[in-house]
């Protein structure tokens, strides 16, 4: 499992081209954010052109990984050693971040052009923060020591909070401040855990820690602190209460990036630390799995009761994270047969990727619908199927992935997870997966029920900026494609190198 996370030994030292590409991939988004804040681009072509070098860097890294396998770097700065590495999950998450970041950036000019004067003034900060966020996320995917992870995680949390505060409305401010408070508590817990680990074993390098850590009270306390902090930030059930208010008033690209990537960053770190510090804590992982069962049902019920469209989308994240929690016991069980282990591992990442793509698309489609109708509630959607077919189609395609209907990443992931669970005769998680499918369908089709209503009175519709609806459709379609052509990305998870 260590090697799968990219915490083993690398065979080859990275070439200079890969060094440069890594630097570009991490630093460039922040610089582009700065540039965006300065120039405030209006034309999508400009945004696309500016993002090309970062995408190219991502491609170079992927090719290097495919050719040489695991890539590792060690940096020294002021007597501290920093570890970076690119393994299978890292490269996939990096690519995902770049693509979704680009989608959000392309969506931004249209959104700002439709906003009021206040929004246009704050647009400057949106560009800046978005760039910083993407840089920090990229760093999280490649960082392999606790200190750098702390730094990047802090940066992610603070930029995310700042972005959520941007709308400046009371509701957004209250939710944002609550999020800030919780994020700080989470960070504090995390920092205490790091201090404990450093004091006990004198290293922060994950790979080294994995070899020297011994079970005992210290590791348990450290793991509890780290785990609680990260679970809070990842909005894992039952620590999810802050999530929905935050999304209810946030701007669309912010919601999209937050649900798709920011909470996944904490989850990714959590998984790594778990495997490093307490790989034998089977009991705990079963507890997480059990909480996942509840999360699937509870999140589904919350989404079902939701009155506002964006709340529905936000609550569905709670349930979808529950699917990932269901897999924890399988990921951590070393006695699993090789095939089931691989299926669980692949299913986990596929579910994560599929959810990221679908959630981005769904938030954008919901944002478009809210923007065009001026209504935030589900009931306000009446008649939209006739006037906003494309946004609704996007919502539908994205929900295929969320429900887990074929052909989508959600379906293929469910298929793999079901096979792994059947192998272990885990009937409760199987029931949760299947119930989750129906619950998701139940709350998703509420949206369509309202939108297909033809008896609604005529409403005034504000036109969207060109491209906003098509941009939302792209990640939704990618979620479908990922389900059918899952083989290629999943091969990367097995460790590159030829």
């Amino acid at each position: 499992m260590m090697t799968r996370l990219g915490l083993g030994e690398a065979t080859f030292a990275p070439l200079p081209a890969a060094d440069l590409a890594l630097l570009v991939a991490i630093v460039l988004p922040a610089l582009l954010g700065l540039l965006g804040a300065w120039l405030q681009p209006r034309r999508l072509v400009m945004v696309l052109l500016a993002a090309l070098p970062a995408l190219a860097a991502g491609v170079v890294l992927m090719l290097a990984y495919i050719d040489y396998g695991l890539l590792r770097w060690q940096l020294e700065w002021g007597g501290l050693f920093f570890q970076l590495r690119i393994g299978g999950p890292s490269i996939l998450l990096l690519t995902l971040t770049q693509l979704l970041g680009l989608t959000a950036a392309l969506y931004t000019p249209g959104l700002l052009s439709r906003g009021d004067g206040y929004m246009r003034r704050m647009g400057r900060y949106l560009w800046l923060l978005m760039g910083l966020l993407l840089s920090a996320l990229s760093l999280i995917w490649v960082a392999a020591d606790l200190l750098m992870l702390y730094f990047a995680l802090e940066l992610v949390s603070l930029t995310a909070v700042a972005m959520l505060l941007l709308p400046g409305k009371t509701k957004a401010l209250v939710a944002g401040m609550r999020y800030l408070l919780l994020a700080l508590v989470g960070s504090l817990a995390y920092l205490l855990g790091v201090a404990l680990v450093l004091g006990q074993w004198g290293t922060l390098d994950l790979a080294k820690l994995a070899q020297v850590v011994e079970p005992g009270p210290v590791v348990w306390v450290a793991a509890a602190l780290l785990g609680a902090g990260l679970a809070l930030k990842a909005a894992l059930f039952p620590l999810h209460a802050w999530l929905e208010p935050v999304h209810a008033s946030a701007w669309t690209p912010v919601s999209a990036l937050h649900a798709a990537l920011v909470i996944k960053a904490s989850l990714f770190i959590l998984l790594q630390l778990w495997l490093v510090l307490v790989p034998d804590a089977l009991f705990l992982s079963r507890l997480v799995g059990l909480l996942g069962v509840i999360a699937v049902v509870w999140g589904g019920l919350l989404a079902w009761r939701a009155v506002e469209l964006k709340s529905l989308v936000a609550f569905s994240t709670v349930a979808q994270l529950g699917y990932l929690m269901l897999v924890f016991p399988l990921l951590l069980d070393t006695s699993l047969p090789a095939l089931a282990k691989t299926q669980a591992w692949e299913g986990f990442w596929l579910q994560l990727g599929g959810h990221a793509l679908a959630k981005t698309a769904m938030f954008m489609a919901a944002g478009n619908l809210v923007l065009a109708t001026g209504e935030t509630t589900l009931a306000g959607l009446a008649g939209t199927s006739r006037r906003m077919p494309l946004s609704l189609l996007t919502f539908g395609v994205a929900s295929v992935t969320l429900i887990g209907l074929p052909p989508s990443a959600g379906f293929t992931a469910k298929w793999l997870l079901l096979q792994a669970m059947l192998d272990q005769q885990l009937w409760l998680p199987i029931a949760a997966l299947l119930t989750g499918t129906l619950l998701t369908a139940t709350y998703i089709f509420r949206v369509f029920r309202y939108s297909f209503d033809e008896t609604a009175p005529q409403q005034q519709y504000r036109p969207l900026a060109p491209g906003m609806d098509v941009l939302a459709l792209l990640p939704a379609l990618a979620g479908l494609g990922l389900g059918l052509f899952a083989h290629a990305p999943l091969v990367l998870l097995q460790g590159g190198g030829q």
Partner: protein
Amino acid sequence: MNAGWLPLAALGASLLAGVVIFQLPENAWRLRASLNLGAALIKLTLVGVMLFRLENGYNDVFSFQVVGNVDFVLRVDDLGIMFAGLSSLLWLCTTLYAIGYLEDSPNRKRFFGFFSLCVASTTGIALAGNLFTFLIFYEMLTLSTYPLVVHRGTAKALDAGRVYLRYTLSAGVVLLLGVVMLYSLTGEQSFASQRGLEHYLEDHRALLIVIFALLVGGLSVKAAMVPLHGWLPRAMVAPAPVSALLHAVAVVKAGAFGILRVIYDVYGIELSYELGVTAFLAVAASITILYGSLRAVAQQELKPRLAYSTISQVSYIVLGASLFGPLGTIAAMTHLLHQGLMKVTLFFCAGNYAEELGIHRIDELDGAGRRMPLTSLAFTVGALGMIGLPPIAGFVTKWYLGMGAVQAGMPWVIGVLVLSSLLNAIYFLPILHRLWFRFGPAHGHGDWPDEHRLGRLETSAWLLWPTMATALFSVLAGLLAGMPMSPLDWASQVVRGEYLP
């Protein structure tokens, strides 16, 4: 030589048509109509080419790996091409009909877009080469028919849509569990593999039965078998072409076709017989046949009567499949086509009466034969076929079913057949009597509920000709049953492959 692009292109024709239609503006009806018809013709041609190649011994396969042990496979085989042929032929007719039916109504773009996706799913179901691929298109069918069912956007339509989804999605979950369990047990299970599941019989007998129950249980919801049929009569609120498609080609047929696949191509008929599941299925199908007919008798409106008749008629397919022996199998496969042709005719007629004269209730049909002779003729053909009168297609099926029952040693099935035919006569003959022998508004007694003069003929040509065509096909399928390439001949060919290795 493998031409894997052929099944892919047949699938792509309607898929692409759907996608392009979504891009067209709402009022570009000429372009949309030509696109629809062009795609339907292309697909019919492609199916013809595949049929020709199959005759010459080529099984075209298209496949790629999805994950680990799972492949996406499109494969042309005897059974699949039957269903693909039916769907592409009736797609053409139904498209023509729908163009006429929906003229000037709102949301035509959405309708035709999802209509094409629905047909694409049906083609995918027909050509799927393994259960995984089958499942993909089976669920796609559920999703693409939902917007068609709720098309009118009324509260009743939306409720029907909700009930439809509740049934079909729950069934999809059950089916998924069954398929995953089967894959866990056996690995990849292609429909084409000669090795059945016999060698699992010793160790996993109970598990095989459980999986069979899950698979067929999931499929029988779409096949509308009692007591899982509740969605079908409600889905009647959809426009007539949708009902025609739902009942004759797409949804209920997909369920029945899936059951055929499971029995013949996954388990194998010998193993199914050995496990004892076919006897159970035969009883369930018989109950459905009688219950559907009884409920049909009780209906006062035309479309619900036809809906219950579908519930009854589709189970003939399941009944045929559960009779062990080649004759029962022939009956099942022939009925897959015959029921489609006759049922589509009946629904077209119901739509014609509703559009031209505003007739929805059966007692409003008095004397309609004089006002709309051609439509009423087509209706008569369909109704007599359903009852099983020669020389219409339905007779062939019932004949083979009866012989199959004798062959399988289940003579009680003949009792079911006789009783069901009697019930068919009870609910169809009064309609025919009203059409032809009662005096109504056409003879100067009262008025039609809501009369329009849609065309120079008795109704719009778009509505009339597809109806006549499918009625003609129903007669020809029965008359020429002995000729090569007739449904019966083709079914016999499939059966030869199944029983003579």
